[in-house]
Each structure stands twice: as C-alpha cells, then as structure tokens.
C-alpha cells in the first residue's frame, strides 16, 4: 500500500462528498446562470446604444431634420427626430423619457433635468447651419457657394502612438480574472479549513490517523478540494468566456483574449490555492468547533486582501515599483502577477522568479503547516496555540 494511493483515496473522498452536496451544486448552477444572463444583458446594452430622440414642436425652420442628422454625424452621435403636434405633447414626451429634449418653436430647448451638453451642441449647430444658409440665400449666393462658405476644411488628426483596441477589454478581463481568483482561493481555502475542523470535531480524524500519516491527510484534503476548485474555476471561467462571444468589438478577438486570461487564472489559482490552503489547513487543525473557526479564519484573508487591492492598482499602473515588487513576492504574488500579466507584457524572468518564490514558500509552508497540523489535530477542546502545536511534535 503506497502512501500516494492513500492520499489519492482521501482526495477522492473529499471531492465526491463536496461535489455531491446539494448546496454546492445549487450555488454553482445559480452563479453560472447569473454570469450567462448578465453577459447577455451587457451585450444587449452595448450593441444598441439607443439613438437620442429630439422632439420638435411648434414652428420649426425648414430642413431641421437633415441639419440635425448632419450635425449629429459631426459629433459621432445617433439622433432620431420626432415631430409633436404642440409644445405640451412634446413636454410630456420629455417628461416620460420618450424624448431627451424638445425643441419648441425653434427657439427654446426643454429638458427633463440637466441639459445634455453634447446634444444641446448638436441642436445649436443644426440651427446655426440653417440660419447661415438662409442668410446666405438672402444675399443671393448659390447653394454651392453657401456650402463652400460654411463648411471649413476639416482638420486632420495624427496619432503619435497607435491606440491598442484590445487595451480596454484586456483591463476588464484582468479585473474579472483577479476577482475570480480572489474568490476561488478564499472559498476553497475555507473549504479546506472547514473540512479539517469538521474531521476534528466529529472525532473521525483519530480513526483516519490510525491508518495514514498526518501529512497524507493534509495532502489528500488539499488536493481533493483543489480539484473541485479547479473544476469550478474552469466552469465559471468558461461561462464568462461563452458570454464574451456575444460581444463584438472591432479588431479584437475576445475569445482568444479571454482564453489566455482564463488560462493564466487557472494556473495562478493552482499556485495561490496551494499556498493559502496549507495555511487554512494548519489553522483549521487548531480549533475543535465550527464556532471557533471565525477566530482564525481572518488570518489568511488579511494576507490575501492586500494582494487583491494592489492587483486593482495594477490594472491602471502595472509598472509601478509597488506593483512590480508585490508581483514577485508571496503572499501577494498570486493576486498581483496574473493581473500584471493580463494588462502588460511582463519579462519572462520576472514570472519565473515569482513562480519560483511562491513554490519555495509553499514548500516551506507545507513543512511548517504539516507540523502544526500534526501537533494540533488530536488535541480536542479549547483552541490550540500555534506555539504549542509546533512544540507537540518535537
């Protein structure tokens, strides 16, 4: 009977028992459903920015419809013109939100609340255009002369740096990724802790430990729950990716961008989870009752939160010293490095150093946490102090 096979049995039991729990399955289905639904709603919002409606009532200058359309194009806006029989009807339309603004008698604009500056400029521009055209006609100019007079040669724009159309989507992707990473590490780390405490409080751990060594129980638990976490990250990430395919942004392949972010999230979940779950397991072994969990559960959260906030900073400023250093060192690196990698290109050696340091720290933690786990797991009753747990296995 090899030790590895026992670890595998323990992992499989963890995985099966948790995956079968109704609460877990329902949460999973709900979250995936929510992601798909929100994705659809967002896509719908982004695909059809509804045209702004300008209501016209009373006396309006000739050709206002065409002039408004031309002015809107100049401002890169979509404007729809609706005619109302009288000022009162137009005002009601504005009040009901049917129209953004009403132009009454070609002289006053009626808004629901604060005026929309751009829309006001569009309407003003259109009115000016008509006024100039009428005056020019009165001076006896031909329409060609008028348009040559009122339409100046447009200025040309020159960009010194080419804009990357993928920058925005990449930032959003990195944000979603770091949120997913944060939640997954926290959630499955806590599963490990609850699992350890459950075994201790139900006393079954003594039966288990009469058959396997403490490190095997620890490893089996971490691996089993980790596999479940991996499955969840992939399913959830896949759902997010699926809802991305309904978005369309010019020149950017969202599925391939999202796919590479998801890949990095999965890899960093494994690294970060391994690090944090060992901390959770060791702390879980020090308490005998579920009620006491609260007193120790904050410790890993406090270690993880700075990384999460710095990763938010990294979304906009991936190059600052703080971001660079925290992306190299545990315990912040599993949160900060993937965000950095998503929004900018990180030199390969920095990624290697970050992964190497995290793996080394995890190995140290397994030694340390394993010893605390072994020293504390059979001591029932009051919370075991870390120092006592450490000494118990000397």
């Amino acid at each position, binding site marked *: *009977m090899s*030790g590895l096979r*026992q670890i595998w*049995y*323990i992992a499989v*039991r963890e995985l099966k*028992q948790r995956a079968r729990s109704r609460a877990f399955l329902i949460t999973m289905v709900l979250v995936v459903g929510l992601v798909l639904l929100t994705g659809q709603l967002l896509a719908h919002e982004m695909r059809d920015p509804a045209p702004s409606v300008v209501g016209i009532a009373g006396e309006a200058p000739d050709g206002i419809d065409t002039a408004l359309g031309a002015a809107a194009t100049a401002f890169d806006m979509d404007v729809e013109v609706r005619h109302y029989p009288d000022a009162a009807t137009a005002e009601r339309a504005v009040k009901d939100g049917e129209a953004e603004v009403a132009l009454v008698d070609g002289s006053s604009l009626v808004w629901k609340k604060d005026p929309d500056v751009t829309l006001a400029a569009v309407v003003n521009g259109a009115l000016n255009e008509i006024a100039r055209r009428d005056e020019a006609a009165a001076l006896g100019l031909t329409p060609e002369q008028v348009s040559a007079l009122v339409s100046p040669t447009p200025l040309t724009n020159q960009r010194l740096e080419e804009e990357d159309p993928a920058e925005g989507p990449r930032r959003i992707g990195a944000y979603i990724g770091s949120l997913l990473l944060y939640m997954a590490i926290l959630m499955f780390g806590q599963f490990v802790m609850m699992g350890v405490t459950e075994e201790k409080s*139900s*006393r*079954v*751990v*003594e*039966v*288990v*430990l*009469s*058959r*396997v*060594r403490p490190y095997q129980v620890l490893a089996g638990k971490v691996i089993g729950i980790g596999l479940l976490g991996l499955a969840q990250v992939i399913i959830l990430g896949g759902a997010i990716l699926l809802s991305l395919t309904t978005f369309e942004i010019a020149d950017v392949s969202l599925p391939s961008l999202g796919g590479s972010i998801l890949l990095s999230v999965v890899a960093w979940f494994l690294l970060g989870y391994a690090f944090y779950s060992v901390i959770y397991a060791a702390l879980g072994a020090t308490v005998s009752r579920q009620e006491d969990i609260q007193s120790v559960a904050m410790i890993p959260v406090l270690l993880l939160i700075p990384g999460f906030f710095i990763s938010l900073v990294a979304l906009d400023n991936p190059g600052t010293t703080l971001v660079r250093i925290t992306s190299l060192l545990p315990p912040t690196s599993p949160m900060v490095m993937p965000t950095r990698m998503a929004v900018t290109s990180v030199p390969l050696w920095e990624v290697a150093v970050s992964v190497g340091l995290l793996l080394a720290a995890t190995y140290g933690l397994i030694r340390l946490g394993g010893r605390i786990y072994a020293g504390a797991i*059979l001591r*029932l009753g009051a919370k075991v102090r870390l120092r006592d747990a450490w000494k118990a296995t000397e």
Partner: protein
Amino acid sequence: MLSCVELEKRFGDVVALDGATFEVQPGRILGFLGPNGAGKTTAMRCIFGLVRPDAGEVLWNGESVTPEQCLRFGYMPEERGLYPKMTIREQLVYFARLSGLGRTEANESADRWLETFGLTDRASSKLEQLSHGNQQRVQLAVALVHDPVLAVLDEPFSGLDPIGMEALSETLHALAAEGVGIIFSSHQLDLVEDVCEDAVIIHEGRVVVTGSLADLRARSEHRRLVIEVDGQPWAPEIPGVERIEIRKGKVRYLARQDTGIDEILAMAQREGEVTRFAFEPPSLSDLFREAVGR
C-alpha cells in the same frame, strides 16, 4: 504478538505512562483495565503512532511497528466519530480501502460486516440518521473492516446496555477464535470480568497486575466470603479472616485461601437458615485494590 515495552510519556507535568509493559497474544482477549486517567488511551494511541512515547517501544513479533504493519491493526478510539453525512456503507468501503484492500475486497468486506451487525438494510443511510447503538456498531465495523490481525478497542463497552454488552462480547470471542489478538480497555473492572481471558491493570501509568485471569485468581491468597443467615448478613469473629468490608450494605470477608469453609458453614447453620454462602476468588477490582494497597 504485540509487545509494548517500557512505554513512557509525559504531557507537561502530567505523567501519562511511566514504564508500562504488556503483551497482547494472538487469539486471546486482553482486558486493559484501570481507573480513569491511568494512561490506557495514551498507551493505545502509542500503538498507532498517534502519540510518540518519550521512551520505550511498540513491537510486533519482536520488530518495530511500521506504518504498513499499522494498517493490519484495527482501532476504535474512545472518542467515537465517523463522517456524519456519509452513508455507512461508503464509510466502511473507504476505510477498508485506506487500509489497503482492493475495490472488490473492500466492497465484500463492507457487506459482510453490515450483515454481521444486522445493518444491511441501513447500508445507504447516513451515519447521522442511525440510532446511538447502531452508530456504535458501525464504529466497531470500521475498526474491523480490513480483517485486522490485532484489534485495539478503547472502552468498547461504555454506553452499552446488557444486551449490547453480550453481543459485543460474543463478537470479540468469535474474532479471537479466528486468531485475532484483542486488547480492549475499560475502567469498569468488574463489568468486563467475564469477557477477558487476560488482564493488564494499569495505575498511574504503571502496570500493577498482569496475567491470565485464571492464573491471577489462582495465585491470589485471598477469597471473598459472603454469608447471610435468615436473609441478614452474618458477621461473627471467624479464625483466618483478615478483613471485613462493608460495601453497599453487604458484609464481605476477605479470607485466606486455606480457610476451612466447612467449619464456617457449620457455624452458620447452627445460627439459623443459611440463605447465602459464597466463597469465591477475588474479583478484578479486589486484585486492583490489593495491588495498589487500598
């Protein structure tokens, strides 16, 4: 054969084991007895490496017990507990596999033990849905599901009613008949007297009495003498009687082995109708009191 040799263990200032030595023979039932806090649980945990003794060693057939060897032992801890939300058959199969049984073997063994304890129709119940007595049975089944060569049971009789005790006693005897060595602990010495064939009595971490029950009784110089005449305890001066104890309203003599009982019986019969006359070897608690000088 399992040998615990000179086991010593301290927890801070508390001495749990102070050079305890004893052996468990294959095919025999050893009662590991002593008052609460005598060191029974610590000694049993030492067998499985759950507690590392400060000194001394645990040997199986003369060699140090390895983790592989441990898998051939079965353990029922004093603090009972299994997975509350797992079905009982799953738990049995799981623990059988953890102990190294293959898939088919583990399933067969689980079914066999469920049948032995009359739990076949509850196989897919969760543990928490079972009565206390049935949970106790599952706990024992888990300790035995991998057909161990040695069963280590910590206070298996506590909390059992007389029928449960009888059933457990029968199970243990059946196991011993198959050659399994059995060590069980109890702090109720007289309650388990009929179950064990060998006894080790431990007191303050030290073994104070050890041997087969038959030998221990034969070896003792004392006999218990209880006489009632006309339904009343009768307690005259009797030559050869060392001590008179009055416990729970009963008068009990502690007599020497060679006391002439014919004479005493005749004396009692002259007094009236003898309603009770007992001349017995000492009980385990008598032996324990004798050993610790109380």
